[in-house]
C-alpha cells in the first residue's frame, strides 16, 4: 500500500487511529475505511460520543480515577466501605477490580509506577493526597494491588515504607499473581483469589 493515497484529513485520522492500542498502520486504515463507509451508522455517532466524553471527563481530585464528576462516582458512593483503600496503577485496574466485584472500598490511582528509566519518581504517585485521606482515622487498611513486576514491587515497597509510620495496616495481594501479570490481564477468579489471600506488609 502506498502512503498518502488519500487526502490529508483522512491521513491524519489514520495516523491517530494507528496510535490506539492494538492498532497498527494497517489495521488503522481498515478502521478508517469502515468509518467512512458507514458514516451515518458509525462515524457521526462516534464523533458526537467522543466529543461528549471529551467535554465531561474529570480526574477525581480525591482518588485520581477518571470519571464524569469530581469527586468521582466511587468516592461519592455512600454504600462503599470507607475503611479500605486499594492502591492501583491506573484506571484500567479500577475497571478490572470493579468488573470482578471483589472490592467494595475506595481507590487511590497512582497513574503509573516508579521507574527511574522512564523518569517517574515518587512525586508522581500522589502520596500526599493518599496520606491526607488518612487524617480522620476512618481508613484502617490500605491494599497495594500492584503488578508483580520489578517496578510494581519496588513501588509497593516504597509506598508501604511511606505509610509505615502512620499506623494504618498495609496489605499486598497474595501469591497466585503470575509474575509480570498486570491486573487488567487477570481473569476474575485469579483476581478474587489474590484479593482473599492478601498479606500484611512489613
Amino acid at each position, binding site marked *: 500500500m502506498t502512503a498518502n493515497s488519500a487526502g490529508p484529513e483522512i491521513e491524519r485520522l489514520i495516523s491517530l487511529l*494507528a496510535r490506539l492500542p492494538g492498532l497498527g498502520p494497517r489495521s*488503522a486504515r481498515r478502521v478508517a475505511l469502515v468509518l467512512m463507509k458507514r458514516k451515518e451508522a458509525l462515524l457521526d455517532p462516534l464523533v458526537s460520543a467522543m466529543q461528549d466524553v471529551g467535554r465531561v471527563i474529570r480526574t477525581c481530585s480525591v482518588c485520581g480515577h477518571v470519571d464524569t464528576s469530581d469527586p468521582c462516582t466511587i468516592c461519592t458512593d455512600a454504600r462503599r466501605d470507607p475503611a479500605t483503600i486499594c492502591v492501583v496503577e491506573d484506571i484500567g485496574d479500577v475497571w478490572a477490580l470493579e468488573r470482578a466485584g471483589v472490592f467494595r472500598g475506595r481507590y487511590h490511582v497512582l497513574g503509573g509506577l516508579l521507574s*527511574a528509566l522512564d523518569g517517574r*519518581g515518587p512525586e508522581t504517585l500522589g502520596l500526599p493526597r493518599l496520606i491526607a485521606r488518612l487524617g480522620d482515622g476512618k481508613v484502617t487498611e490500605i491494599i497495594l494491588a500492584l503488578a508483580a513486576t*520489578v517496578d510494581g*514491587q519496588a513501588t509497593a*515497597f516504597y509506598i508501604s515504607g511511606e505509610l509505615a509510620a502512620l499506623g494504618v495496616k498495609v496489605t499486598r495481594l497474595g501469591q497466585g499473581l503470575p*509474575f509480570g501479570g498486570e491486573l487488567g490481564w487477570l481473569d476474575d477468579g485469579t483476581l478474587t483469589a489474590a484479593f482473599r489471600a492478601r498479606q500484611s506488609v512489613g
Partner: protein
Amino acid sequence: MQAARPMDAQIPAPASAPRAYALTRLSLSNYRSYVGIALECDARPVVLAGENGAGKTNVLEAISWLSPGRGLRGVPFVEACREEPGAAPAAWAVAATLLGPDGAFEAGTGISANSEGETPRRLVRINHAPASGPSALTEIFSVLWLTPAMDRLFIEGASGRRKFLDRIAMGFEPGHAQACAAYERATRERLRLLRDGRGDPRWLDGLEAEMARHGAAMIRNRLHAVMRLMSAMEEETSGFPAAIIALAGEAETLFAADPASACEAIAARLARSRRLDEAAGRTLFGPHRADLDVRHARRNREAASCSTGEQKALLISLILAAARAQSGRAVPVLLLDEVAAHLDETRRMALFDAITALGAQAWMTGTDMTMFEPMDSRAQKFRVGNGAIIPH
C-alpha cells in the same frame, strides 16, 4: 515467582509422549537472506549442507529465537530483518510446529510491524494467541547451541560463560529467564537512580530488594544447573573429556554461606555499595558478575589453558551433559553450527552416536554433505543455497 512444573527426573513423561523436543515445521519470512521458506521434517536430526554464505547459520539462528534472549548470534532482534539495497527492511517472522512432552504447539516469533514512533518489540505467539513475552517459550520448548563463535568461550570474558550456563539453566527451570530479566531491569533502574543523583534511599531499598529476590533465584537456578550438569557428566569416552565446573563470584559465595538468608544478605551488600557503584557508573556486586569455572578433569587443567581442540571437545561434553540431564523431561533441540568439520573422524562418529543415543533432534551444518554420511538414515539431509532449502 517460578512457574509450577514437575521436577524433571521425578515424574517420567508418559510412554507415548516424545522424550525429545523437535521441530516438524519451520517457516521463515523476511529473515536475513530468506524472503520466505518453509521446511518440513520429522524428529530425527537434521543436516544442512551448503557453501559458505549459503544461509545455514541463518536457519539455526531463526530456530534459536524460539527461546528468550538474543538468539544464537547474540544480536538485537531488529538485526534479523532482511535487508535489501534500496528497500526498507521488512518485518521478520519465524514460525514452527514444536513437538514436546506436552504435545504439539504452534509457536511464532518476530518483530512488530513498526507503527509511528513506537520502538519495535519482539512478539511471541503460542497456538496463535499472543504470549506475554519470549520467556513464555521456555514452557514449551528447549534449545541449546554450539557455534564457531563459542570456540573462544573459555578464553574470553565471563559474560559468554554466564550466557552459556543461563541457557542450560533455562532448560531445567523455565522461570530462570524471567528471573534474569527482572534482575537486569531492577539493576538498570537502580543504576539510573544512582547516576541521576536523586537516590531516594527508600526507592533504592525497594529496587535492591527486587535485585536480591531475583538475584538469589538466579544464583539458585545456576547452582542447580551446575549440579545437574556434574551428575550427568560421563566418564571420558571417545574423546569427549569430562569437565569439572563450578560457579564462582562474590554474590555466589555469599549465597552459599547461608542460602536461607541470602536475600537479605545480598540486599544489605548492595545497599553498602551505593557510593562505590555511583562512582564506578556500574554495579560492582551481584550475580551478573559471576563466572563459570571449567576444568578438564583428567588433565586437571583449567579449560582456558587447554588446546583449542580440547576446548572444543569440552564444550561438546558440556552440551551433551546438559542434554542428558534434561532428558528426564525432554532432550532439548541442539543447534550444532559447523561442529562436525572441526572433529577428527573418531570424535565425529562419537558425536553422531551420542546424538543418536540421546534421541536429540540435532541440527548440524557443514559445507560438505559427505561428512555426514555415517549418519545415514539416522538423519534427514537438506541442501541450502540460493535462498532455498531442498531435501537431499
